[in-house]
C-alpha cells in the first residue's frame, strides 16, 4: 500500500468554534493508481490533498506514505520529504513569472545535488514528456493556460516523485486544453506508473481515473 490514511481528522478554529473539515477519514491507495477525488464545494477535498502533500497537518490520525509516517513531522523534515516525494499541480498553475519554462521546471532540482548538466537533462526530459521542449525559453506570460499547466506538470514530475497530486488541474482551462492535460496525466499513470491523486468537480475528468472517491462533509460516501 502506498498511502495509508487512518482516521484522519482536521478541524479549523474559527474564533472559538471548531469547524470540522475532515471527520475520521480512512483511505488506502495502492501504488500505480490514478485516483479521482470528487465532492461538493467545501467538502474537504483540497484539505485532504494538502494533508497528503505534507503542506498541512492533521488534527488527529495517521498518514503513512511509502512506509513513513508524515503526521507529526517537523516543518523542516516535511520540506525535505515533499521535495523527494511529492509533485504538486495547482489549479492556477502557479509558475514563477520571472523564470522561463525551463527555469520553472528546474526549480525543484535546485534542492538536489545534481550538477547543472544533469539538471538540464532532467528538465529537458520532463519538458519532452509534456511536449514543450520548443517552449523552454518562454516566460509564463508568453504561454497559453494549457501550456502553463503542462510546464507545471513537468515541474511536478522532474524530481520523479513518489506521488503526483493535482488540485483541479483542469479547473481553469477550456475543454480542449483540459482534455490534453487529462490525457497527459493518464499517460503519466499508464506509461510511467505514477501514482496520481486528482481533485476534480468534473465527472468526465473523473472518468479518466482508475478509481473515484466521493467526499461529502468530511467523510467518504458511496457514489
Amino acid at each position, binding site marked *: 500500500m502506498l498511502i495509508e490514511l487512518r482516521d484522519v481528522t482536521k478541524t479549523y478554529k474559527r474564533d472559538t468554534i471548531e469547524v470540522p473539515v475532515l471527520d475520521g477519514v480512512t483511505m488506502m491507495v495502492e501504488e500505480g493508481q490514478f485516483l479521482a477525488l470528487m465532492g461538493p464545494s467545501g467538502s474537504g477535498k483540497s484539505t485532504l490533498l494538502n494533508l497528503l502533500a505534507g*503542506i498541512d497537518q492533521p488534527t488527529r490520525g495517521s498518514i503513512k506514505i511509502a512506509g513513513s509516517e508524515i503526521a507529526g513531522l517537523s516543518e*523542516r523534515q516535511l*520540506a525535505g520529504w515533499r*521535495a523527494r516525494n511529492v509533485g504538486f499541480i495547482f489549479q492556477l498553475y502557479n509558475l514563477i513569472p*520571472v523564470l522561463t519554462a525551463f527555469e520553472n521546471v528546474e526549480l525543484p532540482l535546485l534542492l538536489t545535488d545534481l550538477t547543472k548538466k544533469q539538471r538540464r537533462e532532467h528538465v529537458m526530459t520532463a519538458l519532452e514528456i509534456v511536449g514543450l521542449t520548443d517552449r523552454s525559453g518562454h516566460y509564463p506570460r508568453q504561454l497559453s493556460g494549457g501550456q502553463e499547466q503542462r510546464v507545471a506538470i513537468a515541474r511536478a514530475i522532474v524530481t520523479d516523485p513518489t506521488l503526483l497530486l493535482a488540485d483541479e488541474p483542469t479547473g481553469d482551462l477550456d475543454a480542449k486544453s483540459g482534455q490534453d492535460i487529462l490525457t497527459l496525466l493518464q499517460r503519466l499513470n499508464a506509461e510511467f506508473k505514477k501514482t496520481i491523486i486528482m481533485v476534480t468537480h468534473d465527472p468526465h475528468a473523473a472518468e479518466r481515473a482508475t478509481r473515484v472517491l466521493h467526499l461529502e462533509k468530511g467523510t467518504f460516501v458511496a457514489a
Partner: protein
Amino acid sequence: MKFLSLILKSARRSKRRTALTALSVAVAVFLFSSLRAVLDGFNAGAAGSSSTRIITIRSTSLIFAMPSSHTNVIRGVDGVQDLSWANWFGGIYKDPQNFFAQFAVDAESYLRMYPEVLLSPDEKQAFLDDRTGAIVGDGLARTYGFKVGDRIVLQVGIPIYGSQDFTFTVRGIYKAGGTAVDNQSMLFHWKYADERAIEKGQIGWFVLQINDPERAAAIAADIDQKFTNTPYETKTNTEQQFMASFASMFGNLNLLLGSIAFAVVVTTLFVAANTMAMSVRERTTEIAVMRTLGFPSQVIFFFIAGEGLLISVLGGLIGAGLAMLIVNGERLGVTGGFVPAFGVSTTNALIGVGISAGIGVVAGLVPATLAARLKIVDALRRVA
C-alpha cells in the same frame, strides 16, 4: 551560486522599484560619506596638530586682538623657543560667497614654525621679499584658478583694516604637508595689514614653539599668569584645543552633521524595509509554491534577506562611488580653510557600503521572517 541567480532574477522582477530602492540607499550613503569627509577634516585638523606648538589667544575670544607688546613678555617665558603670530583677516574676494580663510602672518617666523607649509625655496624667497605678496594653498589655487604672479584684490571684511581694498600678488602656491595646515587658505604679511589698521600692532593669536611637550600645560599657565589682571588677559592652549575651538565657532558640527547622516540612514532604512515588505506581500503565492516544492523556510528566508542585501549594497556601492568621484574630484571647498579639507577616504566609502549592507539586512529581516513563517495552505488559499 544556483540560488544567487534566483535572487538576481527576483530582484529584476520590478526593475523600477529595485532601482528606486537602490537609489535611495545610494543617496544615503553618498550623504553619509560626504558628511564624514567634512567631519574627518575637522577632527584630523585637531588630531594632527603638533604637540610642541601652543597657541595664545585673548581670553575673551579669538575675535579680539592683543597688543604686539605681548611678544616680548611671551618670549621671556621659560620653555618658549620660538614665536610667531597671525591675524584673521576676513577679506572678501569679489563676492562674500567666495569664502576662504586669509591669515595675516609674520611670514618669516610663521613659515619657520610651520614646516608643513611646503613651498619651493624660490617661491618662499619671492614671498618674503614682497611686502604685498601672498601665498595660497594648492586647493584654493585650483578652486579659483590662482597662478603665481596673479593679483588678488580683497575687500576689507573687518572694519579695523580701514575701507580701502587690499591688492596682493601671488608669490607662491604651497602644498599642505600635514593636517595642521590646510591647502584652502591664503597667507600674507601681517605688516601689510597692520600698516592700514586703524589701531596698530594688534595680534590675533600667537603661535609658540616649546621645547618640551610634557610641559605644555605648565608653560601655558605661566604665560596666562603674566597677563592676569591686565586689560588683555590671555588663554593659552595646545594647538589641538585651538583647532577644536575654531571648529566650535560653527556650533557642534560633529553632532549636527552626525545627526543629519543618522536621520538619512534611518529614513532610508524605513523606505527599504517598506519596499521589501511590499514585494514579499506581492509574492505570497510564489513563496507558498516554492515551499510546496520543498524549499525549506530557512532557504526562503535567505532568498528574501539576500535580495534586500543585494539591492541595498548595490545602492551603497553607487553612493560611495559617486561620493569619491564627485567630492574627491572637486575637493571640498566647504570647510573654507579652517581645517584641512579631505576627500572621501576609502575607509569612509567602505563604512558607507557597510551601512548599506546593514540597511539591507535590517530592512530584509522582517519581510524575510514573514516569508519564512508563512503558512503554505493559507497563502495558497488567499488567491484561489
